[in-house]
């Protein structure tokens, strides 16, 4: 209580100090007068009386000072004075202040922005209740209703099981501009399972799944805002989806997304309960683990369940062997982690370089101010006081740099959000928030403490006399500055090596022959009901015929799963006349359904035999084409033509005869080897959902609208989705790597620029400091070239040490980037030579430019000075 009272009184005292000063002076003066009067009364002469009184009272000024200190808070007032002084000193040297603040702002801003992304995507818990218990069931597989029911009934490790079926395209009509919406159909317990609450209205529950229930929809925040103008009255009204009324019951919050960023609304999934198919699944399994159960335990149980199902339902022997349960977090974020970690590591290096650079700038400045500081010391400032003054200056720079950095971070976050691959999970959650700002603040404080303490320490170490003597041969902080240049160059090299490795990866990807030509191919996915097989076959024929006739279209085909689409169905292979010995696993193959001239569209060559064509119609003998990878896997050293093959769901129980061999296609990604594939005709193996692909004469996307018109003129109820060029599809598969390359490249560039500035500074400084020595050397017969060499050495030598250190460190870069590199060894000879060589060239240039001044020195002028 008493302490607080005193503190308040002292704080108040700071404000009334000026008035208080007069007060004190008057009080002391009256004291003096009374003492003088007393002395006079004792018989002294007035002048002597006052002198004696003063002697007894002690120094008036010191007393006033002591009272003033007691009144206010001297340390705070000193700090304020230091800050005022610092601002004044920095304004006298705006170039220096701008350089420091700019470098800090870039370092802090870039780091805070990357942290903002990493935090939102990787670090924060998923925005679902008890998210650590949520799992992705059998992520490799789309489950059928039968399987979901089986899990609900039998899996004890799973407290609750739900389904999530994305990618349903639905026409929205009854609005100004009819639109195709991307819906996800989900089980009734989906929202409850996640613990997700709507921003508006309500979500639907199990009742919505029941047959005959009123159709309801929950909207995505973005759809609600863009399409319905954020109208709160929309909840409770109906919209027209696929020509029928659907009641809007709620709107989800902005940051709610699940598994993908494309879903615009959620509808109840009313799956065909009678469907016994074990392969025609349409939904992802999502579940909540029972308390205390791990995904590994759940996986064991799942495999045991599928084993029983094999016997009970007579499904294939391979069913369920690969079944697993993966933590939702892992399944969602696992693929993004290497990318973000690489970027985070790189941006951390940028901050280190920025800090080193600023420390360097401050050292130069401290050197320039040696005389000023020495004068202050000579006038009685203690070392601590001077160190505090210098630290205050750093603090002012840090605060301004940090504030600017936060502004940059806000802009940078928006920029990053635009640059990130569109599939990046949790994209909607990336936003400026308190955690990001707190991070920027911590960075600012940490960095300021780091670079700020250096000049104070250096200043405190020097003797006043040495500094006052202004001895130019005693170069200021030379060892420290050389070390800093070395560190800068080493760090820049590490970043450069990373960027070069990524560049070589992306180049290697561009050079990959994917087995198909992706240019000028337009693709889109159509969903057909398949309820009448004859009509369905006729439908696909008509689509291809009509599109082939469209001007601008060269050739048309259909395929079950496009390369790089991320979708692939697989089956075990049986060869007629080659029974497998008991206990031997059959080889597996991907299977495809193709129609029209698909191989011509994507430019896959025929190697042997013939392609599938009109001869392979519904009533004709069953035929298939295989790719080279399949031929090598199943018929090594044999002729696959005319052999008969069965492959699970691709063929059913019928034998299909191989009529041709085509080139292999990299189906999974550019980086994975082409999988073995078999191709059957859509006539002989009907599937409901296919991608239509057509080779065009010009820019494929310009044909999207006319193609859509043609398709809807055949049947207006066919949903069209995923309209894109094959080039876009391929680019998406390399998006993460290109993102990392772009950022690493940018960061490496920043690092090199900072490094160049550092080397330049050191050499320019050396020239200034050694002017007399150089003049003397030249007067004694040294050539200008020798003078240039002498000072260049100063920059190049220490850069070279940095290059050696950085070169060793960059051996480890490959490991950080391991998950992203492709087609280049983590320790790559070219990178290890090219990056240091490039950096050495840049460093030499940075040293040479200021060193030229040494050559232009006139010995006579220099020595006379």
């Amino acid at each position, binding site marked *: 209580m*008493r302490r607080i*009272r*005193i503190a308040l*009184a*002292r704080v108040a005292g700071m404000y009334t100090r000026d008035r208080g000063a007069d*007060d*004190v002076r*008057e*009080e*002391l003066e*009256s*004291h003096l*007068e*009374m*003492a003088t*009067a*007393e002395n006079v009364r004792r018989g002294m002469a007035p002048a002597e009386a006052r002198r004696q009184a003063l002697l*007894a*009272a*002690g*120094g*008036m000024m*010191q*007393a006033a000072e*002591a*009272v003033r*200190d*007691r*009144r206010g808070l001297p340390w705070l007032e000193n700090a304020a004075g230091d800050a005022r002084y610092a601002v004044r000193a920095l304004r006298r040297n705006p170039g220096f202040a701008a350089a420091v603040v700019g470098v800090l702002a870039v370092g802090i801003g870039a780091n805070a922005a990357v942290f903002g992304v990493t935090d939102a995507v990787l670090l924060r818990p998923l925005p679902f209740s008890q998210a650590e218990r949520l799992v992705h069931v059998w992520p490799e597989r789309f489950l059928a209703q039968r399987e979901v029911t089986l899990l609900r009934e039998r899996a004890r490790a799973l407290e609750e099981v739900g389904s999530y079926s994305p990618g349903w395209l639905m026409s929205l009509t009854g609005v100004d501009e009819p639109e195709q919406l991307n819906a996800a159909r989900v089980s009734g317990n989906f929202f409850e399972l996640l613990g997700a609450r709507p921003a508006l209205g309500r979500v639907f529950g199990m009742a919505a799944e029941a047959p005959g229930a009123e159709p309801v929809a929950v909207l995505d925040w973005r759809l609600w805002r863009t399409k319905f103008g954020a109208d709160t009255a929309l909840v409770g009204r109906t919209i027209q989806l696929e020509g029928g009324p659907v009641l809007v019951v709620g709107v989800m919050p902005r940051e709610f997304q699940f598994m993908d960023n494309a879903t615009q609304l959620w509808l109840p999934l009313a799956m065909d309960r009678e469907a016994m198919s074990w392969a025609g699944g349409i939904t992802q399994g999502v579940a909540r683990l029972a308390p205390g159960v791990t995904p590994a335990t759940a996986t064991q149980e799942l495999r045991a369940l599928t084993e029983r199902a094999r016997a009970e339902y007579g499904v294939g022997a391979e069913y369920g062997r690969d079944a697993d349960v993966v933590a939702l977090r892992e399944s969602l974020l696992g693929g993004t982690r290497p990318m973000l970690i690489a970027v985070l590591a790189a941006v951390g290096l940028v901050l280190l370089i920025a800090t080193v650079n600023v420390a360097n700038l401050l050292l130069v400045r401290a050197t320039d101010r040696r005389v000023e500081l020495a004068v202050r010391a000579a006038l009685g400032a203690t070392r601590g006081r001077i160190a505090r003054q210098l630290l205050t200056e750093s603090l002012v720079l840090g605060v301004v740099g940090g504030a600017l950095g936060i502004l940059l971070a806000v802009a940078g976050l928006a920029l990053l959000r635009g640059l990130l691959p569109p599939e990046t999970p949790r994209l909607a959650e990336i936003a400026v928030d308190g955690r990001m700002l707190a991070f920027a603040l911590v960075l600012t404080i940490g960095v300021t403490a780091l670079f700020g303490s250096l000049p104070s320490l250096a200043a405190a170490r020097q003797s006043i006399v040495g500094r006052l003597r202004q001895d130019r041969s005693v170069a200021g902080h030379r060892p420290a500055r050389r070390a800093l240049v070395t560190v800068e160059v080493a760090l820049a090299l590490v970043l450069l090596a990373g960027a070069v490795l990524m560049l070589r990866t992306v180049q290697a990807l561009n050079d990959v022959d994917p087995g198909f030509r992706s240019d000028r191919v337009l693709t889109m996915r159509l969903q057909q009901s398949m309820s009448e097989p004859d009509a369905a076959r006729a439908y696909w024929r008509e689509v291809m015929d009509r599109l082939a006739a469209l001007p601008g279209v060269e050739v048309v085909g259909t395929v079950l799963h496009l390369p790089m689409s991320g979708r692939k169905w697989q089956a075990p292979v049986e060869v007629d006349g080659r029974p497998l010995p008991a206990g031997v696993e059959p080889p597996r193959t991907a299977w495809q359904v193709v129609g029209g001239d698909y191989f011509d569209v994507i430019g896959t060559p025929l190697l042997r035999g013939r392609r599938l064509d009109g001869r392979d119609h519904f009533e004709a003998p069953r035929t298939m084409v295989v790719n080279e990878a399949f031929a090598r896997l199943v018929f090594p050293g044999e002729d696959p033509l005319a052999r008969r093959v069965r492959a699970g769901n691709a063929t059913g129980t019928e034998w299909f005869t191989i009529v041709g061999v085509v080139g292999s296609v990299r189906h999974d990604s550019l980086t994975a080897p082409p999988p073995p594939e078999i191709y059957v005709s859509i006539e002989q193996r009907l599937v409901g959902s296919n991608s239509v692909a057509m080779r065009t004469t010009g820019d494929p996307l310009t044909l999207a609208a006319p193609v859509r018109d043609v398709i809807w003129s055949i049947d207006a109820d066919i949903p069209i989705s995923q309209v894109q060029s094959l080039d876009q599809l391929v680019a998406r598969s390399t998006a993460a790597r290109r993102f990392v390359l772009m950022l690493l490249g940018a960061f490496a560039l920043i690092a090199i620029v900072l490094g160049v500035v550092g080397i330049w500074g050191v050499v320019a400084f050396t020239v200034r400091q050694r002017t007399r020595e150089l003049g003397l050397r030249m007067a004694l017969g040294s050539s200008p070239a020798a003078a240039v060499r002498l000072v260049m050495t100063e920059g190049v030598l220490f850069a070279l040490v940095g290059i050696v250190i950085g070169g060793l460190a960059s051996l480890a870069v490959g490991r950080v980037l391991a998950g992203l590199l492709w087609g280049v060894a983590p320790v790559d000879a070219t990178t290890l030579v090219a990056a240091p060589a490039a950096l050495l060239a840049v460093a030499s240039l940075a040293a040479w430019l200021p060193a030229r001044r040494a050559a232009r020195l006139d010995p006579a002028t220099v020595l006379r000075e």
Partner: protein
Amino acid sequence: MEVKPGTLSLMILTTLDVLGPLHGYGIARRIEETSRGRLTLNYGTLYPALVKLEQEGFISAEWGQSENNRRAKYYSLTKAGRSELARETREWHETASLIAAFLTPRREA
């Protein structure tokens, strides 16, 4: 002889208790006289101590006229100051008797 730290505030409070409201000079004179010239108080010691006591709320200050018509700042004891004086006096006696007990030579039995 310099004033021992911690004892000055007790002297000031006692002075004000005995003499009533008084200016800084008067306090200094009184303390010097009471010590029979053994203590000398300079400004730098006395006035910061007065500020501190004022901040603590033990004394209050007011400008007034001195006996020979000079403007002077008069300090007087507050209620809190009175109880502080009692407390400090008690503590001082205890400390003094304790120290005295230590310093008195005594034969061990």
